[in-house]
């Protein structure tokens, strides 16, 4: 422990209790009021999304339930849109879409980053590492929107996949951050004694990487996944606005792009419904992600 760390931890608390990172993290997280509140909000959204998924509510998002641009009423809580669809239903339904996009992208991008990052880190210095680093550099250098557009094009000739072109594009770009973090961590971890021990016991390399080293980066991956989740939701909005996003469904991005013409004409319901819900989720998730990072990152002890 260097002097700086001692100053921050003058009483040596981090040595005091030999708890695991996770129990300590949980303990810290539960004491983080902002974190707990934001987690509650996230859970609320999860509940909404699950309800949509199970068909409890917002089932009528595609129906023409009313007239054109009906104002807010008991029947239509946020009014109706230009073709008479219920904006409340659509906004609620979009929660599911957001989670779908967020989860799919966060999980797969993080997983991809973990695998490639771990391989690169473990074999650091080898051609494999060079190759993966090169790939990261290359993908980082292509402007994001151009890249997504390009992938959307390439995939659109395959109708079964074209629905997911946005997801794929995001995964292909978002894994890089996770990959870099994991690579760095693995380079550190592979010097640890237990890795040497595993080597000495003749454990195969890939078992060492994925059984022994990678699990020790789980806290980084978890935090990175939440960050990716937020990034995916926010990107969805912009991509859908540009017509590169969600295809066969409903999303806040689509609602906002629908509203971009309406707002200047003084019809704000679509815009407000979608942006307030979007803001709520992103804000809660951002704070949740921060709290998680505070709780799980051994470096930020008293920040």
């Amino acid at each position, binding site marked *: 422990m260097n002097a700086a760390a001692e100053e921050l931890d003058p009483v040596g608390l981090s040595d005091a209790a030999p708890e695991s990172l996770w129990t300590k993290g949980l303990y810290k997280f539960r004491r983080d009021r902002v974190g707990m509140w934001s987690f509650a909000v996230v859970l609320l959204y999860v509940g909404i999304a699950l309800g949509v998924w199970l068909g409890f509510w917002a089932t009528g998002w595609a129906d023409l339930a009313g007239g054109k641009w009906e104002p807010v009423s008991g029947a239509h809580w946020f009014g109706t849109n230009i073709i008479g669809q219920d904006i409340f239903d659509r906004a609620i339904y979009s929660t599911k879409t957001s989670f779908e996009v967020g989860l799919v992208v966060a999980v797969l991008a993080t997983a991809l980053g973990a695998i490639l990052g771990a391989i690169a880190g473990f074999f650091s210095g080898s051609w494999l590492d060079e190759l993966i680093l090169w790939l990261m550099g*290359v993908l980082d*250098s*292509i402007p994001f929107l*151009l890249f997504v557009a390009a992938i959307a094009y390439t995939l659109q000739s395959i109708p079964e996949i074209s629905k997911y072109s946005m997801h794929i594009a995001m995964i292909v770009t978002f894994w890089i951050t996770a990959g870099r973090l994991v690579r760095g961590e693995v380079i550190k971890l592979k010097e640890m004694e237990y890795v040497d021990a595993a080597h000495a016991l003749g454990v195969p390399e890939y078992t060492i990487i994925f059984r022994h080293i990678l699990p020790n980066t789980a806290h980084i991956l978890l935090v990175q996944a939440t960050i990716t989740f937020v990034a995916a939701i926010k990107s969805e909005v912009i991509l859908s606005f540009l017509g590169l996003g969600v295809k066969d469904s409903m999303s806040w*991005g689509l609602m*906002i*792009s629908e509203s971009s013409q309406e707002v*200047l004409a003084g019809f704000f319901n679509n815009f407000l419904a979608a942006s307030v819900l979007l*803001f709520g989720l992103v804000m809660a998730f951002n704070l949740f992600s*921060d709290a998680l990072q505070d709780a799980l990152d051994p470096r930020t002890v008293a920040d």
Partner: protein
Amino acid sequence: MELFSYSLRKLATGIPLIIGVTLVSFLLMVYFGPDKTFELVGKNPTQEQIDEIRAQLGYDQPMVVRYLDYLREIVTLDFGNSESTGERINALLARTIPVSIAVALPGFILGNLLGVGLGLLAAFYRGRWPDKMIMGSAAIGMSISFLIVIIAFQIILSSSYGLNLFPVRGWSVDSFGDYVSYVTVPTLATVFVALGYNTRFYRSVIVEETTRDHVRTARAFGVPSLQLYCKLILKNCLIPIITRIMFSIPFVVISGSLLIESYFGIPGIGKVTYDAIITGDQPILKAVVALTAIMLVVVQLLTDIMYRWVDPRVSLK
């Protein structure tokens, strides 16, 4: 001389990157990319006419030939003519990049300056209410979608439902006054969105630096806070700051702010690129991607040189 040979070596190591970027984007955007043929065939084409257009566009060439063509274009920095308007790509870049810079620069500078300023302030008051206020606002700023900000700012500042102060969209700049009136709303929107991220980033860099031993030393020798933060700490933070700023430059200059420009109808490189996506104008896409990659390599080099300039520990190896 040392610098020169270093630069050459550094640029040479950038070649794999450029080849990678161009190959990936060639495959995605050109070879499997949008097909311009059917934009150009007219209302009632025959198969023969379709084939003629394809030949005109060079789509009938094998992949390798087309990729080598692309590389040749990069080496000669001559990307031919736009497939939509026939304009020389170089003329088009020369026309649109200055506009993009003019649009993006004020927001870019302000966003970073304010970000550093607020980051310093927050770090200085770490844990106290000014810090909490700034970081809370940053979290809010980060949580609002860029698109929502643009729309909201347009309503508030430019529409008859709001203050109606600025033009709704467009770019008709003949004087400095025009420039200010057109650039204000895009700038505010950019700053609003960037500020949250910038402030957080700069604060964490600065806070990290404040925990360093040399800061305690400085305090132990009576360095006043202002000097401590604005000189000693800031200079130590320059590496991450420079990295962040420099590496966003190629994207600001070359890809422009696609969203801002297409929303506000500003004829910069971002809008042109977006239109090129919409109309499948491959020469423009090829040029934009290649230039971004080249600029990234150049920026990497410049960044390294700047590192040495701000940090004596860095040497050009």
